[in-house]
């Protein structure tokens, strides 16, 4: 009896989740009348605007990941090592982006860093790009920090630090060559998740007027019929790839650890 209910719940869930995916996949193939074809994909992939915006978003994602790692890893490490009393407060700050909607944060950016402010970041394209990267880093902060902090929990930070120090290592060496390799899996998990978030992000890029992938998708959706479905399939594949890579590195790390 229990199993019947379990299968029913699972089945209903599966139908709800698979139908939209089937729907978008089928729709994306229907551009040519009467037959299935990859025309919509050819059209999308051949669009110079697609290549431009997608390249821009990939680049932004990579910068955000590097910045996020440089910001989060030393902080999480330092808090674990020297300031454990501060942990709840830091953790609270990292969770704030889940509370404050992205649209409110970016509204604040526009007000605070406009051309007539003390730090006119939105005045230049480079400045706005940097501001957008900071915005993305903020959005990814809850996931990045949690991943790294969980990774640090599994290693003995204090002993590793003392061992490295007694061999004459400085702080940079400790962080780059002792701590980072030990939490690499956690950092990679956070990085892939950051990538998935940044690549499709719409609100911040649109309101800061940057040529990112998210606003491009929205614009195409407002004007075309079949191409958006193809884009949705591509975006879904990217999200899936990012999650798959997270699983892969996690499993890989378990494998290597088991050999010791």
């Amino acid at each position: 009896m229990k199993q019947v209910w379990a299968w029913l719940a699972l089945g209903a869930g599966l139908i709800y989740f698979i139908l939209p995916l089937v729907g978008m996949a089928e729709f994306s193939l229907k551009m040519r009348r009467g037959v299935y074809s990859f025309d919509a994909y050819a059209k999308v992939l051949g669009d110079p605007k697609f290549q431009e915006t997608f390249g821009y978003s990939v680049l932004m994602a990579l910068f955000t990941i590097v910045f996020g790692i440089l910001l989060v890893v030393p902080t999480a490490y330092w808090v674990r090592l020297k300031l454990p009393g501060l942990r709840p407060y830091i953790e609270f700050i990292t969770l704030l982006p889940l509370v404050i909607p992205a649209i409110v944060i970016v509204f604040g950016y526009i007000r605070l860093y406009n051309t007539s402010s003390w730090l006119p970041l939105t005045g230049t394209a480079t400045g706005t790009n940097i501001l957008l990267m900071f915005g993305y880093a903020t959005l990814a902060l809850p996931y990045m920090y949690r991943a790294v902090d969980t990774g640090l929990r599994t290693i003995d930070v204090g002993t590793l630090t003392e061992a490295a120090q007694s061999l004459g290592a400085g702080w940079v060496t400790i962080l780059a060559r002792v701590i980072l390799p030990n939490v690499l899996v956690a950092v990679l998990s956070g990085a892939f998740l950051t990538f998935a978030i940044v690549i499709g992000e719409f609100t911040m890029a649109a309101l800061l007027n940057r040529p990112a992938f998210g606003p491009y998708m929205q614009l195409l959706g407002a004007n075309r019929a079949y191409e958006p479905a193809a884009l949705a399939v591509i975006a879904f594949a990217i999200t899936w790839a990012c999650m798959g890579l997270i699983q892969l590195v996690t499993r890989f790390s378990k494998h290597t650890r088991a050999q010791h």
Partner: protein
Amino acid sequence: MTRPPERPRKRLPLHWLGVVPFLLFALLFLVLPTMNIVLGAFRTPEGGFTLENLRGLNTQSIRNAYWLSIKISFASALLGSVVGFGVAAAITLGGLPKFIRGPMLTFSGVASNFAGVPLAFAFLATIGPVGLVTVFLRTQLGLDLRLMGFNLLSFWGLTLTYLFFQIPLMILIITPALDGLKREWREAASILGATGPQYWRMVALPILFPSLLGTLALLFANAFGAVATAIALTGSSLNIVPILLFAQIRGDVLGDPHLGYALAFGMIVITGVANAVYIWLRARSERWLK
């Protein structure tokens, strides 16, 4: 020849310097921008204190927008919680084969991140005017969704779409809590003569109650702040708060910026309250689920 050990010098406590870059970042790009909005909501253009901006929210159209937003967020959070709980219970306690659990959790991770613009496209292609399901129902079963009153650009349409990321989020959050239900409790209950439903009603659900309500609050905030899906789905035709604020910031609607501050402030208050409930209830539920 050993030198006498140096006397330990009193040093200024400089440990806190290590977190300064992080705190500076959080201050500049998270706290100050938000504070700016909150303070702006109480300021006149000249800089004086006022409640006029908040009073500006009290128009028919803005009240309707908040109400519709709250209804959609609450409905999608409630349905998402119930269905997500059902699926999570099925894969943890329902006696399904073990191999289902892993892929299901991975898929939940994917689906909960598959929000925004592409999600809207997927639903348009499925139950939009010429979507897969719409056409199938019309041509094969003679059911016209539009004549039946269903419209994707409506309360139910948006709720149905939001469920695509709400249910997986519920599964991801509640599965650990369900794993925390100890077998001994179930056995103890059945030794004392409890039936299955009795065990759920009198033991399991009371224990899970704080985490269930807490996750409900989190899902509510999650839906309330969702902008991209709504805009890609409806353009600006649906009157909900995130779309209103987006138009206000873009300058599509020529109003004073201080009304924008007030709108944003209202959003912070609502998501803030929802999350405060979540944090408070999670702290309570952790007492049992260790």
